[in-house]
């Protein structure tokens, strides 16, 4: 039995692409044989005492941090959460000895190129090293808004998104094995031409703005004079 703790690092909480990926990975595990837990970082930060959350994290064998890329890095509230966990972890001797939990990251970004998550993946590596836990690897996935809005119409196992599903399977295998199976970060994204992504993306923003009664022209406003 493996103890797996997922941490959602999106400011959008449960209505996020980060959560969609947590759900996708979670369902790969046999719930009879493994114990999973999900912590939402925004909710945890609001608690007066979130030590309970940190205790669950520290006592897991694996932590999977799932968060969005914000300006090539980690969203500020989630960074704050990571600082707090570091502080908590310093007090926990058990972790210093066995270097558990093992740390994984699923990072999702808006632009199509999954490799734009490379700096954030390294930051998570530095984080794990600094707090003395075992770093495993990151999966960086592009086109987050597209992935989330198309999750019903284009399932994750469809040809276009299969590479993401396969990355999740690698993660699962790595967690289930006691060996080190995957050494490197995986950067991936749905397979589509960049031109099509740009066209669809631009149209997506215009359509969403229209729901707020904002015309396309107004999206270009320059309020700062």
């Amino acid at each position, binding site marked *: 039995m493996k103890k797996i703790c997922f941490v959602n690092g*999106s*400011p*959008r909480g449960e209505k996020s692409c980060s959560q969609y990926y947590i759900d996708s990975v979670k369902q790969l595990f046999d719930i009879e044989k493994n114990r999973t837990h999900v912590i939402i970082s925004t909710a945890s930060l609001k608690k007066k005492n979130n030590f309970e959350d940190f205790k669950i994290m520290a006592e897991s064998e694996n932590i999977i941090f799932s968060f969005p890329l*914000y300006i090539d890095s980690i969203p*500020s509230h989630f960074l704050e959460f990571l600082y707090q966990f570091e502080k908590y972890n310093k007090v926990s001797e058990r972790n210093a000895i066995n270097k558990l939990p093992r740390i994984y990251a699923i990072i999702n970004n808006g632009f199509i190129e999954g490799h734009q998550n490379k700096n954030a993946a390294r930051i998570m590596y530095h984080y794990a090293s600094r707090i003395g836990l075992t770093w495993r690897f990151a999966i960086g996935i592009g086109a987050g808004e597209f992935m989330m809005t198309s999750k019903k119409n284009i399932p994750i196992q469809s040809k276009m998104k299969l590479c993401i599903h396969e990355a999740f399977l690698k993660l699962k295998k790595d967690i289930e094995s006691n060996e080190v199976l995957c050494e490197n970060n995986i950067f991936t994204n749905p397979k589509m031409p960049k031109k099509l992504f740009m066209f669809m*993306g631009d149209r997506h923003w215009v359509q969403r703005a229209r729901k707020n009664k904002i015309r396309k022209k107004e*999206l270009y406003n320059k309020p700062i004079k």
Partner: protein
Amino acid sequence: MAILLISDNNHNSIIEKSVTKIKMLLDKGGYQYKHYEIANKKLNHCIGCFSCWLKTPGICIFNDIASEIAKDYVKSDVAIFISNIRYGTYSVPIRRVLDRQIPNILPFFEKVNNEIHHSSRYNNYPEFVVVGCGEDISDFEIETFKSLADANAINFKKEKAFVYVCRAVRDIDETVQSLENHFSQWGITRNEKNLLC
């Protein structure tokens, strides 16, 4: 405004001395600048609602120092961020300010170096300058920090970032000197009128 200085002076003596020395340079030279010290200030974090793109284009739903900074940002020629470096990234307050910059760009996409990024909302953006401080930073963390700052600069519509790292007090003078050497390249001139007063 020529120079926008944003510091989070809440971590170590290197940051404190860097802020003091950079301000001395600016005061002495009569450079026009505005300084925001954001340590311990109330700053809302971006909640990812995209209102600044889709409801009130160009304006964040929060009204605090971070939105003031975002306004001043596009009116500046140079923006200098002074932060500690931890895990190869910025401090939490500086990260808050950076995340809250997205009203200044458009939701629409364009290609830069064959990668997709957002298009500019405004015609001009300041040079993106970062001074990263801290005694205990590994070489690898510095490499990450520089790579991160360059990526940030691209998202903030500049080709590259200017990054200075101060691991010890002795690095500060070199940083200040280099900043001054760059000012003319960035189109910043001494304000003789200010000098006279």
